[in-house]
């Protein structure tokens, strides 16, 4: 016999039967095929006996002992009789109390005394409450999930269902509460929400008479939480997405490979751009941009005189690094017997005199260029019989233009004593002096100081244009090829040796512009990749999606599920692509995040469009296998 039949035969509800089974009072066999319980006649007899003993108020552990033979039925019922008699006394006491209160009347009622007596009786407990307790325990054991009962009525409406449940509850001592304002037949039992449904039964054509009378089965099922918490919903969704990915191994692997390839391409592209930018930034370390003051028509052979405003503009420019400054001088060395003319110059550094530090032999190894000393040409020095450390007296003259600015005239400045601090093979001059001293001589002589030569290096070649603009504003001109006498000494033009740098920079900038111009195309390619991959996947899974829709899955949920799978696989592809590129030394972590971010965005956008378009298919046609 099955559970339904046993219910009908014994009048014990299904959940009570299961509870008794759990308590070890009976052990029905199971059908090997479908796992259903099969109750024997002995099981039915046991259940009837259990019901009988429970209705007498006997506790389950006692009943178990009786059924297992640990205690005889006679002993058990004797003890139960004693308990019942004791309870009877309590009931009698309660009835007597009622009679007592009736006789006292309201005016003479001693409430405290009555309460004390009644509380003593209540502690004894109720007899028939035990059967209700069984239900509670059964409900607790099954987590109060479901119970059902037959009704001999034609149930149609929610109210009729609930009325049946109420009658059942009263019969079985259940604590029920109504739930108002809901369309379904809902009620509370022991604080738990239940939903009652009625299954109308078709009258049997044969069978016992009482079976044909039963028209409906009321099934009460505990309501499960319909609203899961956001966290549980999220975790469940993640589980479903990961499960789908795991089970579509080939498709998932292919998607990851495609994404990985796209990310690697993106990384290479970005690396190219970053590399070019870095090259551009480091270009001034490779190419030195230098310049020199010239006269405007390019003829330098007659010498230069650079006016103060031009010289100051160069000295004050923030874009220049080392500056070489030189002023041409005329010197006459006054000896004891003769006067020796010499070409002299004041220089601010050895380079201004075309010298390297190792070219000069010094009397002392210090290289300070301060003080009244000079470096003499070796040949000149030896011819005059001079040695290191000797002091010479010299009449120093500077140069000045004549009124027509056609020739340079010497202008006496002062007479000085110079110590020969070092000697070297000088190219053009015989004597080199510190520039600071030379400037002082011009001041002493009351002659305007104008350097003869200024050469410089630009610190940051990237600021070349700014430097040129600054020099334009200072009044410097461009050197023009030509000859002319007037103004040939004016140092008012600049020559900047920037050709190699500019060519290299232009080439790199062109490369960068080219790569940046195609950047949107690369992003578009990523989007198209997402679109195509998604289209192909959707085609393959159209039937699955149709079945999901047919089972009541909303469009939004279908979209989110498939979209999440795509995004997860794209992310996995990004991670694999990053590993490959970083292992190959292509790109930096910063570049990876940029590329991965751009890829995920574009790929997801493409997939989104594809899913939105592909989601508009006829479910009916798909399920019927038609297009």
């Amino acid at each position, binding site marked *: 016999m099955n559970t339904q039949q046993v219910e009908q035969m014994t009048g014990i509800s299904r959940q009570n039967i299961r509870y008794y089974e759990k308590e070890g009072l009976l052990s029905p066999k199971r059908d090997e*095929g*479908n796992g259903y319980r099969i109750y024997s006649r002995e099981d039915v007899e046991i259940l009837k006996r259990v019901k009988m003993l429970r209705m007498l108020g006997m506790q389950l552990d006692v009943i178990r002992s009786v059924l297992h033979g640990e205690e005889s039925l006679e002993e058990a019922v004797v003890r139960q009789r004693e308990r019942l008699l004791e309870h009877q006394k309590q009931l009698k006491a309660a009835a007597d109390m009622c009679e007592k209160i009736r006789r006292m009347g309201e005016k003479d009622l001693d409430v405290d005394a009555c309460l004390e007596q009644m509380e003593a009786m209540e502690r004894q407990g109720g007899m028939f409450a035990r059967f209700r307790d069984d239900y509670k325990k059964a409900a607790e054991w099954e987590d109060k999930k479901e119970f059902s009962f037959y009704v001999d009525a034609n149930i149609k409406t929610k109210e009729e269902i609930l009325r049946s449940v109420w009658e059942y509850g009263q019969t079985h001592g259940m604590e029920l509460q109504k739930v108002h304002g809901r369309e379904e037949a809902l009620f509370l039992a022991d604080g738990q929400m239940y939903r009652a449904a009625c299954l109308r*039964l078709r009258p049997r054509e044969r069978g016992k008479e009482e079976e044909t009378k039963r028209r409906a089965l009321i099934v009460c099922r505990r309501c499960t939480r319909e609203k899961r918490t956001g966290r549980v919903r999220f975790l469940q969704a993640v589980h479903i997405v990961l499960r789908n990915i795991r089970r579509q191994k080939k498709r998932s692997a292919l998607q990851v490979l495609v994404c990985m390839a796209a990310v690697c391409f993106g990384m290479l592209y970005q690396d190219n751009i970053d590399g070019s930018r870095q090259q551009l930034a480091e270009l001034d370390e490779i190419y030195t941009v230098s310049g020199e003051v010239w006269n405007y028509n390019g003829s330098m052979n007659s010498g230069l005189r650079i006016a103060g405003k031009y010289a100051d503009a160069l000295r004050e420019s923030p874009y220049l690094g080392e500056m070489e400054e030189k002023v041409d001088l005329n010197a006459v060395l006054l000896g004891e017997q003769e006067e020796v003319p010499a070409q002299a110059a004041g220089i601010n550094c050895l380079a201004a005199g075309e010298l390297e530090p190792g070219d000069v032999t010094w009397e002392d190894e210090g290289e300070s260029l301060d003080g009244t000393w000079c470096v003499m040409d070796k040949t000149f020095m030896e011819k005059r019989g001079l040695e290191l450390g000797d002091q010479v007296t010299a009449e120093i003259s500077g140069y000045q233009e004549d009124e027509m600015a056609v020739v340079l005239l010497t202008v006496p400045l002062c007479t000085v004593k110079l110590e020969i601090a070092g000697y070297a093979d000088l190219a053009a001059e015989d004597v080199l002096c510190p520039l600071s001293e030379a400037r002082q001589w011009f001041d002493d002589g009351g002659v305007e100081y104008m350097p003869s030569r200024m050469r410089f290096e630009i610190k940051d070649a990237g600021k070349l244009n700014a430097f040129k603009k600054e020099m334009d504003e200072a009044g410097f001109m461009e050197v023009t090829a030509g000859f002319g006498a007037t103004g040939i000494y004016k140092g008012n033009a600049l020559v900047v040796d920037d050709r190699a740098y500019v060519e290299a920079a232009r080439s790199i900038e062109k490369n960068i512009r080219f790569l940046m111009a195609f950047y949107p195309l690369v992003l578009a390619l990523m989007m198209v990749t997402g679109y195509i991959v998604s289209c192909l996947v959707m085609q393959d899974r159209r039937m699955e999606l149709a079945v999901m829709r047919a089972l009541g899955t909303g469009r939004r949920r279908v979209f989110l599920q498939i979209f999440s799978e795509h995004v997860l696989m794209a992310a996995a592809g990004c991670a694999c692509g990053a590993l490959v590129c970083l292992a190959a030394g292509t790109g930096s972590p910063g570049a990876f995040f940029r590329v991965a971010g751009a890829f995920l965005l574009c790929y997801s956008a493409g997939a989104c469009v594809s899913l939105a378009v592909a989601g508009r298919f006829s479910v009916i046609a798909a399920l019927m296998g038609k297009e």
Partner: protein
Amino acid sequence: MERIKVEDVSYSYISKYQKIDALRQVSCSFDEGKLYAVIGESGSGKSTLLSLLAGLDLPSEGTIYIDGEDLASMDRDAYRRDKASVVYQSFHLFPLLTALENVMYPLELKGVPGREARRRAMDCIAQAGLPEKILRQYPKMMSGGEQQRVAIARALAAEGDILLADEPTGNLDTENEEIIAGLLLECAHEKGYTVVLVTHSLELARKADVIYRMKDGRMMRYDR
């Protein structure tokens, strides 16, 4: 009690640039606790009618009422989740899910927690007469009969009370056809479902309480 009422329903669609009138002014009703068979030749509109009853699309004309409510005004996704289930000739199980997971799907859709969903799904699989070993099998490992029973178990798991079956025995042998027919009858007569069965088989249709016949998109009651 009348569950479904179809009132002057017509349905047409475009196929290969041609308009097809699949249903023409069909009117009928379906009561609870009964098994209805809809028979007819191929292309007579039986499956289309079933699809409309399942809320997969709306009729071009006419109205379908479910428990007195117009299907067009309902949330049809919720209707398919909570009230109506469909069983197909091709079973349409999810190939990547096991039998248990297939049957759990409608319960998960409703938000039933995992353990409870698993318990109910196992009950439904047992009700469909399937052994426990089927639980972890994928559809490709099952026979046609087993797949169709899993599909019916999935329909039962939805805990609705309308079951729509589109040629459920079309791909099955006689023995499995009998088993499936038995399950559908049990759903109608024991559980009180409204079962609508579309079939070519007159023998299967004769087991039903009411037979409707469709021809060229029109419906008429069939006299046994």
